């Protein structure tokens, strides 16, 4: 298993290459969309880079469960229902959803994923491979 620092450094390098940001900008607290300017297509680029850097496979919807966020069953009036939120938590154990849970407006979701969430996500994928 790589150390947390090794993990962070590799992820930082993937984000620097994919998003054209400076290393200093990639802090654990930085949000991918809000602070680092990631757009939807960047997530595909980031996933490719993480797969290569860590020799893992990241199936569609694992990092960003868009199926839940666009589901008529779980979304009502632009907000996730309590069932939808529970499902999201189940699918994203790596993400800190506390702030989002208070007002789960779907269009704000993209802005809550942080670099630290991504580190935890990769950590869990690498652990599964070990």
């Amino acid at each position, binding site marked *: 298993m790589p150390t947390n620092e090794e993990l962070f450094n590799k992820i930082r390098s993937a984000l620097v*290459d994919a998003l054209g940001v400076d290393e200093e900008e990639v802090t654990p607290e930085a949000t991918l969309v809000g602070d680092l300017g990631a757009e939807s297509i960047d997530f*595909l*680029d980031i*996933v*490719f880079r993480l797969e*290569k850097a860590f020799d893992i496979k990241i199936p*569609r919807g694992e990092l960003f469960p868009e199926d839940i966020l666009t589901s008529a069953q779980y979304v009502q009036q632009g907000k996730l229902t309590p069932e939808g939120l529970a499902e999201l938590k189940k699918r994203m154990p790596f993400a800190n959803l506390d702030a989002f849970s208070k007002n789960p407006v779907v269009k704000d979701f993209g802005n809550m994923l942080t670099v630290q969430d991504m580190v935890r996500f990769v950590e869990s994928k690498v652990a599964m491979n070990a």
Partner: protein
Amino acid sequence: MRWIWIDKFIEFESGRRARAVKNLSLAEEHLHDHFPGAPMMPNSLITEGLAQTGGLLVGEYHAFEKKVILAKIPKAVFHFQAVPGDTLVYTAELLDISDDGGMVSGTSHVGDRLQAEMELVFAHLSDVGRARTLFEPKNFVFTLKLLGVFDVGSGRDGEPIPEPPGLARMRANWTPTDVPHS
């Protein structure tokens, strides 16, 4: 003008890499505007040529069942200007591919000299809404035939790349006026 910015493939290894040639000639109209008296191949068109080389590699992987678009160029570096008389050799390597798209690294060489290097991200369009009628990926099979892929290509099993069934179906539907003079 046809929007084909490579002249032929010289290598096509399914799922791995492809190499294509682009000859630059003063007969190309655009070189006289870019720039008058100082013709040079626009780097944007070199990018397009590499994107076509890599895009066909990505499309062939899924037998042209998916709509492939160039989604992002995370990196592009040009080391010198290519000019009429140069033969550019584009190499595209497929680094990763999934249901969502593909990642390609590409280089352009003039002889042994590295002229450009870039990363290209291709996305598969979902077949809903406008994307459904945007273009028909199977049409690229014609381009592949034109560019000699079936002459030089090898499949993932090492055997020659067979012409996809779509080409035979299209050929069956050709009318006599479509058949080129031999």
